[in-house]
């Protein structure tokens, strides 16, 4: 085996891309050839070294900056899709290329015939040199729109799937604003309770205060996010508070938590000062029993509002629902569909989701079985209340 060829094979072998037969012969050569053996050892060591490289991390402001630009309606930067070479320029390059090739052919045949070059050819030859330069520029890889193949795949997915004929999806209920509101209320209660427990632990010297403070801050922020969502739904007239005091308490807590600065001093006193007043509103521990939900009159309007809410609060939906994917992800995989499953009819077809509070509160089982390379799910989501 040629050493250079063997090293190329070894490089692919390192990435697990060689069939067993070629791998065996490449490794056999590496054992018998000292320089190839050294190369094999070196590339393995190099791979380990690169794995130990420091991981570059985006700054803390990265996400905030991104969402700010998205909300501001900033468009795609121009350089993402550079303008393709104009048709006229292509024609010009082609003609120049043809002229250059013709010139080279004439030149080669002239040299081959060993005949003196006519003086009239000299200017043409000089222009050919410039043309080759132009040609090489024309041959530079054009950077066009990324992944043209993805468009084809998208087209396939855009075709509305006949999911009503699929037992998994026909048994599931559509996700509505009502379900969203109920889930948000349920999670708000859970996080309020967690934050309140954290407050108590923070004041108790026998507990780990740092962990307790983290628990308070994290859960208070979740209370704020879900509270904002409920208030938004209330303003859209999709949700009413049957308890006026709860309405006032929730508005106060959200407004208060929204003004909490990023704490540089993580002392229990500071956390107590900044989060305590909002978390003292005990009505927040029982929101679901004091909200009324209005049914949507128009399903299209319902979906539009759902998407609008999601765009305004992009981080909230993943906190509310676990997404199991579309039919291509889970077709035939879920062996025990739960009656509490929901689906969202997105632009790419229906996706199966489950309310997160029910899954976490009632220890839904998600068993993953290996089945000859395919993943199969057995899913059970128990009804929360």
């Amino acid at each position, binding site marked *: 085996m040629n050493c250079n060829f063997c090293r190329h094979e070894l490089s692919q072998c390192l990435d697990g891309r060689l069939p067993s037969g070629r791998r065996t012969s490449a490794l056999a050569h590496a054992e018998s050839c000292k320089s190839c053996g050294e190369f094999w050892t070196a590339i393995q060591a190099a791979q380990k070294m690169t794995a130990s490289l420091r991981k570059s991390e985006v700054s803390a402001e990265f996400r905030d900056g991104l969402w700010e630009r998205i909300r501001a309606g900033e468009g795609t930067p121009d350089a993402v899709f550079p303008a393709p070479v104009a048709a006229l320029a292509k024609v010009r390059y082609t003609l120049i290329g043809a002229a250059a090739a013709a010139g080279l052919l004439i030149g080669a045949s002239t040299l081959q015939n060993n005949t003196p070059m006519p003086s009239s050819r000299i200017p043409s030859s000089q222009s050919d040199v410039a043309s080759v330069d132009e040609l090489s520029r024309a041959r530079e*890889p054009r950077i066009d729109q990324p992944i043209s193949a993805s468009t084809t795949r998208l087209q396939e997915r855009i075709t509305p799937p006949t999911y009503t004929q699929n037992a998994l999806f026909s048994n599931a209920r559509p996700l509505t604003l009502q379900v969203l509101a109920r889930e948000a209320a349920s999670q708000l209660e859970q996080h309020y309770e967690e934050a309140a427990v954290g407050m108590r632990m923070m004041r108790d010297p026998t507990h780990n205060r740092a962990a307790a403070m983290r628990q308070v801050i994290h859960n208070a922020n979740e209370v704020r996010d879900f509270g904002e969502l409920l208030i938004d739904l209330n303003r859209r007239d999709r949700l009413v508070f049957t308890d006026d005091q709860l309405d006032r308490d929730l508005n106060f807590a959200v407004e208060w938590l929204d003004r909490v600065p990023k704490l540089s001093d993580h002392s229990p006193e500071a956390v107590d000062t900044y989060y305590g007043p909002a978390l003292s509103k005990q009505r927040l521990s029982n929101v679901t029993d004091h909200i009324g939900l209005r049914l949507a009159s128009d399903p299209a309007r319902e979906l539009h509002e759902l998407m609008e809410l999601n765009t305004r609060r992009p981080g909230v939906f993943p906190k509310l629902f676990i997404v199991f994917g579309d039919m291509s992800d889970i077709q035939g995989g879920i062996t025990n569909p739960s009656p509490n499953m929901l689906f969202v009819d997105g632009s*790419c077809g229906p996706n199966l989701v489950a309310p997160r509070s029910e899954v976490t509160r009632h220890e839904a089982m998600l068993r993953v079985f290996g089945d000859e390379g395919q993943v199969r799910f057995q899913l059970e989501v128990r009804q929360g209340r």
Partner: protein
Amino acid sequence: MAQSNTEYQPDPVTMVAYHRALAEHADGLKAYAGRLLGDPVAAEDVAQDAFLALYRHLNQVPAAAYRPWLFRVARNLCLDQLRRRKFKMSLFRDLEKDDNRPFTPPDRSNEQPDVLAEAREAQDAIEAAIQELPTKFREAFVLCEVEGMSYEDAAVVMGCPVKTVSTRLFRARQRFTSLVSRLIKV
């Protein structure tokens, strides 16, 4: 003028996939751009631009293709920046009346061993070796070896056949191993 596709509102499920991509690929994207540009601040801007572009095209890109799509976009942005830098360099050269000097990145090979020997930072040596690779080889090396991307995805990002990725990666490994052994032994 920036292209605009700002009216599209992604559905919740697409947003979940977008958030996942943000969590999984933002760091890698910044690292990739950083190694192409050699400038961590500009690299973060490139990563943010790429995610902004993805958000505006969520209705056109399947979730499974987010990663190569993002890296492809980041590559376009980096090449654009490098072209601009090259243009600026040529302007300065015009001012200096030094038109014949070709644009090449500064050669640090002579000063690096001393610095590295003093600092004893193998990480810097590896990064320096990556930076010394020719751009095409470096790109294949960073995508496949550092970011762990498949040859197929790297081919999409680089806009070349899979076989070319394999060859460039092989050449990059040859150079990298010689560079690293030289730098680390010093």
